[in-house]
């Protein structure tokens, strides 16, 4: 717990797991989960840097904003997903490919 690298490594792992989730999951909600992972990874970075590098609370404030934004984004995204479900009966993003050349 005394080393920043442990946090950074964790955040990096969460980051790529999030990326993996968004790029392989079919289900729209699952993809949103991946996005949350990415945001969490970034947040860990901010807090870790606050403690180890900058010694200021700016990182904390950023994290709070991000959490709030994540909530807003999740709400909007879910509204869109539900809308899609109403129209198609599924929320599999990879099947939403009528728009292509």
């Amino acid at each position: 717990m005394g080393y920043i690298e442990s946090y950074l490594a964790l955040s990096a792992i969460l980051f790529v797991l999030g990326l993996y989730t968004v790029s392989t999951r079919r289900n729209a909600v699952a993809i949103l989960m991946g996005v949350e992972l990415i945001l969490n990874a970034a947040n860990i970075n901010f807090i870790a840097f606050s403690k180890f590098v900058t010694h200021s609370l700016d990182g904390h404030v950023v994290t709070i904003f991000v959490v709030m934004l994540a909530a807003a984004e999740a709400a909007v995204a879910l509204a869109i997903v539900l809308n899609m479900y109403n129209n198609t009966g599924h929320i599999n993003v990879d099947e939403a490919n009528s728009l292509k050349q």
Partner: protein
Amino acid sequence: MNLSQIVQDLGFLTPEILLTGLILLAIIYDLFLTKETSIRTGYLAIAGMAIVLFSLFAQNVEASQGLFNQMVAYDGYARYFKIIITLATILVMWMSFQNDELKNRTIGEYYQLMLVLVFGMFFLVSATNMLSIYLSLEIVSIMSYLLAGYLKENLRSNESAIKYVVFGGVSSGIMLYGISLIYGLTGSLNIYEIQASLAANAAISPALLMLAFVLVFVGFGYKIAAVPFHFWTPDVYEGAPATITAFLSVAPKAAGFAVLLRFLNTTLTLSGDPNNIALESLSNLDWPTLLAGVSAITMTVGNVVALQQTNIKRMLAYSSIAHAGYMLMGVVVMHHNGVSAILYYAGIYTLMNLGAFFVAIYIKNAFNTETISDYTGLGYKAPMIGIAMAVFMFSLTGLPPTGGFVAKFYLFRGLVGVGDTFIWLAIVGLINGVVSLYYYLRVLYFMYFKEMNFPDVYHRAPLQFNILIVIIIIPLLFGWMIGDPLSTWTASATSFFVP
């Protein structure tokens, strides 16, 4: 940051405050309207935006300011983009009255969301803090998702929204990760302090710096639709309500360029003062070359794929990617000329791209087709539409005597002006111009050459639409001829706030 300071700074935010008031007013006013009368929110929004525009013009930007602990800047640069955005908004709102897709539904929220989107862009173009950049970028994105999916019973609109939200969410997440690295590297979120720290600390490994920069650039790149972050563009543009597509292809893109340019020229330069005529990039981060590559690939991909398109909206989507590539040419020169060229291009591009979209929307409404090959003979059936389309196509190609030419000319002038380094990019750009000619002309080919028959009765577009088109065409065609006010204006609009 005490109360008196807050109150004083608020004085510089008149347009934003007016806009906030307008948003609230629109929400409240809409409560009293029915489905049939909800269009009045739109009138209110346009009227309000006109007032905002007026207040923007009334701003005195002689002395630039950093507001709220340098969260946002108050300067001529930001004001220029705010004006462009406001104008684009007014035009798009006006066109929205004509868009059949939006008929017979509750429309109040459409305008409310657009106003919030504008609000986000206002902050985006003036943001000078990584957090405010991220926050305003998110406002713009979230409102864009909502507007793209506004036709909720329309599958294509849904699809477009969901793709947008996924791509946008991930991109901004990646950007946030990049911002966190920069925060760690420099200990600050303020772009001026970041610059000072980076410039002072040349020991940072280029790889780490590049990583942070690339991750941040994902967010910007997605906003301006630069390759390889452009994939969402055609799909979203095709599915979204046409007026929103037009809006998205113009205003957020301009805002994206505004913030990108401010970020690059402030944070990643040695001097940190973008008001300098010529800048130098950080010694351990060669971002101009990177962006030059992105620019070349972006315009080439945009043009080459546009060659293949049969749907007008998709074609314009790819063309807008290509135009992002052109505008990036102005970024890489790191010179006053490049900046003013981008400003100029943003202005002209707004006009010509909106014009092209509006004509396409009108044709969709009146003739129910978005396929280019169905435009056969339209030039004769509806002469006004045909001429307008011809002007926009020529302008997008960059041919004199349209504004598109002058805009492009300034870009190339900037590029050639800094010596030999980016001549290759200029040549790529010029060749791309020739390639693009083909698909733009294809539209005219179908409208005029394919078949020639005069109808007994012309198709006449409604007066309101004609006025709108003329308002766009006149400055596009003649604006630059008489003293070129835009160039004078852009030259003066390159005053950045620096602490």
